[in-house]
């Protein structure tokens, strides 16, 4: 695997994670993470639309005039979102009914436009496709973790299967949007603290013996 591909994978999943670092796609995080099943379908939809959209836009990038760049991006991305909607309605009506407005919400996900603009506009189609997949998955694993906490505490179940006893009192707040706000905030805090510590450690390792070498990392963390 090429170095560039490896970097794209690492960036999407961790170092430039859409939720932790780019802070994109937060709106859908609030809406869909109160149960794992909806989250899963949303993640698959976003991953597909981002990957296919980035691939198409990268193919077209030399033909697109700068003036209408964003219009074309929106057009291509919404094309894939509508395709997902049509396919679900025709072949998976049960899922389509359950998701209702969620599918349309994929287009409001800033990750799609963000990756089209930040990556696909300057990279080869294959790499852009990989970048779309990795950003989708990077968004996905964080969302699934949050959804697992919310569904477990809010309904006492995971993927709709009851895992707690009858004596368990569901935390209603976990089902509602506010809980997503503070869970996302906690996840952001945790991930960025961990990252800052890891950075400080590697810097301290590089400048071994220098007193106070860990401080720049800590200062960066405080700034964030």
């Amino acid at each position, binding site marked *: 695997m090429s170095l560039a591909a490896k970097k794209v994978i690492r960036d999407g999943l961790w170092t430039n994670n859409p939720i932790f670092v780019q802070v994109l796609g937060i709106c859908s995080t609030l809406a869909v993470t109160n149960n794992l099943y909806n989250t899963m379908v949303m993640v698959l939809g976003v991953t597909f639309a981002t990957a296919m959209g980035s691939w198409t836009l990268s193919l077209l990038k030399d033909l697109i005039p700068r003036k209408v760049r964003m219009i074309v991006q929106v057009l291509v991305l919404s094309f894939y979102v509508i395709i997902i909607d*049509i396919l679900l309605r025709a072949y998976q009506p049960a899922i389509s009914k359950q998701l209702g407005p969620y599918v349309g919400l994929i287009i409001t996900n800033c990750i799609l436009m963000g990756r089209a603009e930040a990556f696909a506009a300057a990279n080869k189609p294959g790499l852009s496709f990989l970048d779309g997949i990795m950003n989708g998955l990077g968004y996905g694993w964080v969302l699934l973790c949050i959804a697992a906490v919310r569904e477990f505490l809010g309904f006492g179940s995971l993927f709709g299967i009851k895992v707690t006893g009858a004596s368990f009192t569901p935390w209603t707040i976990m089902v509602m949007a506010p809980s997503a706000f503070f869970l996302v905030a906690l996840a952001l805090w945790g991930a960025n603290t961990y990252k800052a510590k890891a950075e400080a450690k590697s810097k301290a390792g590089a400048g071994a013996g220098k007193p106070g070498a860990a401080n720049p990392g800590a200062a960066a963390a405080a700034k964030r």
Partner: protein
Amino acid sequence: MKLKKESIGYVVAFTFVVCMAFVALLAVANQLTVERVKANQSFASHFAALKAFGLADASTARNEVESLYAAQVRELAAPSPGVSAYSAKIGENGFVAVKLTNPGLWGPITAIVAADPKAERLRGLEILEQQETPGLGGRIGEAWFSAQFAGEKVGADGRIDVAQGSGKGDPDKENSKVDAVTGASRTSDFVESLVAKALDEIRRIGGAL
């Protein structure tokens, strides 16, 4: 001739061609699946009618739905525009159901409501389509919510209250009250008025039977 990418002619032509191409692809995809989507919708409607009558539940095999529907459910003449009516005989008793669309918070809610012809006790309710807030009002589509309506006694005022309760479902079938969705009182109000309207229709149809 070398194309000037930023020239107005190129920009207009490019935008036009790209839009036409993607819209054409969508139109083709839509056309190819339109029959399937229609079949799915009619299946969903038949299944919901059976569930509202209590003749089927989530465990009913998909391939049995159409034969059950054909055997048990009779489609009645539409009582008013936009409303469909059905009847079914279960054991000794006849039941009437109506499918109607009423406003919701974000968009229309379509549901099938079944009751005895005098509309004294609900037989069942199935939400067919809704666009309520995902995770809040959208939960009216969940089984625990609609299950509360099955067998519920209709109040003296001809209504069933959808009001704040434990949020887990109200098991009392005699109090003419079901639990609203926590955090979605507006949506719950819309469901309440939809059920009241459906009961009026059923009473009218039941009286004419």
